């Protein structure tokens, strides 16, 4: 998938500019908007039929989905808050995908990142907030980064499949977190909810001014743009894409594939670890089992829906954030069970994937020449 997931901007740049025909020039770009859009509409139609089978009015459904996700300023903030961690965890899958690796362990890196960030904050309570926050970012990135680098190193040096090892590392990471949070790191006063001590209100990173959305969104957008530039506009990214397309070719041109794997895995894990740090520093204020809320797993979905393109991750994360934001309204107004959000996500995902088959096949977009 990775080799085909060409990015829209570059695809346009590459297309011959000799013929100034509109479709000729923008056909591919239009495709990249039109096809996923049509897939989305198709998925919503199928979901509408599904709920209609249970006696609900699909028009109500669409209205409440819109209202819950984007209908009011509050809904927008709700959506963006939920999207924020997804951008970062999606990068944990999308970056290694450039190398043809399938990493599904973002959840584990998130937990370890959160644990590292909390540890450092608790270790330097005397430091001024800004120092603590910077230390937390570093610790989160390094903790999460090393966690996924472990999967990358096992692949490189021991030939262990990275998909499995990263998944196993999720369960192991969760066990370590629980073990520490209920053991040596436990705040004795966290009686019935075993947690670490709090990092302190002064060290919290708070919300973007004028909104309820925490700074994690900005971190996510910046990381997505940085990843995009790294992958598509640097030699390093070019080498990664070459290696992802064909490892042997990469070796022939003298690329150090091992080094690439380790560095990309570190960045990927670092993104998820940063998401964990933000959950601590912007939301929970401490580490406990609440952090395992599945952001890492939803991030996999986001990455695949965005076809592993770091920039496309942003709108896809917002879309999925919107779906989960509207899920509550569907439960309350239509009496649908919570699982309807999962069903809808599954249907959208299936449609978007199936629509991959349509690229380059829509006659009128191919131009007349």
């Amino acid at each position, binding site marked *: 998938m990775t080799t085909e997931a060409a990015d829209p901007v570059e695809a346009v740049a590459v297309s011959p500019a000799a013929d100034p025909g509109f479709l000729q020039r923008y056909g591919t770009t239009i495709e990249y908007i039109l096809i996923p859009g049509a897939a989305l509409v198709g998925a919503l139609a199928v979901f509408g039929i599904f709920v209609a*089978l*249970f*006696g609900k*009015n699909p*028009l*109500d459904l669409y*209205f409440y989905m819109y*209202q*819950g996700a984007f209908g*009011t300023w*509050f*809904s927008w903030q*709700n959506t963006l*808050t*939920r999207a924020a961690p997804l951008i970062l965890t999606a990068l944990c899958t999308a970056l290694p995908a450039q190398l043809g690796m399938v990493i599904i362990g973002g959840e584990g890196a998130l937990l370890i990142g959160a644990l590292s960030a909390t540890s450092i904050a608790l270790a330097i309570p005397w430091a001024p907030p800004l120092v603590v926050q910077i230390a937390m970012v570093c610790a989160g990135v390094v903790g999460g980064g090393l966690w996924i680098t472990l999967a990358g190193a096992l692949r490189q040096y021991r030939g262990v499949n990275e998909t499995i090892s990263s998944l196993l590392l999720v369960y192991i990471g969760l066990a370590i977190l*629980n073990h520490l949070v*209920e*053991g040596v790191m436990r705040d004795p006063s966290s*009686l*019935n*909810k*075993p947690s670490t001590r709090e990092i302190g209100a002064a060290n919290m990173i708070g919300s973007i001014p004028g909104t*309820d959305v*925490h700074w994690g969104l900005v971190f996510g957008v910046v990381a997505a743009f940085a990843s995009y530039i790294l992958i598509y506009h640097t030699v390093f990214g070019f080498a990664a894409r070459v290696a992802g397309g064909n490892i042997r070719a990469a070796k022939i041109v003298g690329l150090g594939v091992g080094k690439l794997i380790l560095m990309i895995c570190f960045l990927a894990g670092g993104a998820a670890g940063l998401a964990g740090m933000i*959950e601590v520093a912007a*939301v*929970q*204020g401490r580490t*406990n*089992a*609440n*952090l395992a*809320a*599945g952001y890492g797993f939803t991030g996999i979905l986001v990455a695949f829906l965005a076809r592993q393109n770091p920039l496309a991750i942003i709108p896809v994360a917002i879309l999925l954030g919107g779906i*989960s*934001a509207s899920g*509550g*309204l569907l*439960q*309350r*107004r*239509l*009496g*649908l*069970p*919570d699982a309807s959000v999962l069903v809808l996500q599954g249907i959208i995902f299936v449609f978007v994937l199936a629509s991959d088959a349509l690229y380059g096949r829509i006659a009128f977009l191919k131009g007349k020449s």
Partner: protein
Amino acid sequence: MDFAKISRRHLLRGSAALTLGSVLGVRSAAAADTTIGFIYVGSRDDYGYNQAHAQGAAALKKMRGLKVVEEEKVPETDAVEKTIESMINLDGASLLFPTSFGYYNPHVIKMANKFPKLRFEHCGGLWSDKDPKNAGSYFGYIDEAQYISGIVAGYSTKSGKLGFVAAKPIPQVLRNINAFTLGAKLANPKATTQVIFTGDWSMPVKEAEATNSLIDQGVDVLTCHVDGPKTMVENAARRGAMVCGYHVNQSPLAPKAYLTGAEWNWEALYPKFVKMIAAGEAIPNFYRGGLKEEIVKCSPYGEAVSAEARKHADDIKAKLIAGGYTIFKGPIMDNKGKTVITAGTDRGQKDPELEKMDYLVEGVTGATS
């Protein structure tokens, strides 16, 4: 298709109170109505913790002038803040019941500060003087009901060995284990309780394994403290052991093996709260009670419970309801031989020391870490 039929009937039942017709966009909350929001951490049909709360919410739905909105499977992250805000902003909720322990800090506190005119009733008994006045936290002394279960179990066991499948070694769980054991010792001074911690609130396979391991050790009466006791009840009954239920009445699952159980009585408490508010009375911020206050109750005795056991249990139940009876009455030793409550010390139900319980009493096999 049969599935569609039963699901539809079920859904209609579940949503009867929130049906809106199909009028798009009409704010349904009529001015005279009070809208109450219920938030559950798991599925409200879990036959356990969440279902007990949903039964309480169902009792409110029957009252006039009330509209109840519900949302299930809301994780203990900022998602619960957004759900609360959504219920307030989009549904007009003025009284909220976030029913999971982990919602309180920081999420409910944050929302209570943000909406000072609205009322938040959290389940968990966590309120302290520092917290906002419009937030409250209630909980039940369900160890009283566990004590009664213990008495019945003590009479019913032949091997003198009781089993307890528990999620985590936190004070609330330890208190239940200890009360169950102390009750059993009233009936049979030689009775012991073996405890196995599964590590999390809902792990059916682990719970089944724990149940089997306990029975392999000679245990013949079991109870539990996990979110959904169904797995333990069914698997124990299959192996011919007796069970005491938890959260809700599970006797239909194993009518012959079911002795009694410790149940929540939210159906009684929630209407009481609403009536107090309607009458202009203030609900105490920290509201706790046991059998006497009708916050907890015992399941009706099963057919296997002997007349002697019924008499003894009823006798103690009457004393608890009358007040003045103390379960944790010194001297009490822990299972390492250390005195934890000295002779002459009575730790009544409201004693804050009991909230910090970190020991297992003499007669319990197991360790807190």
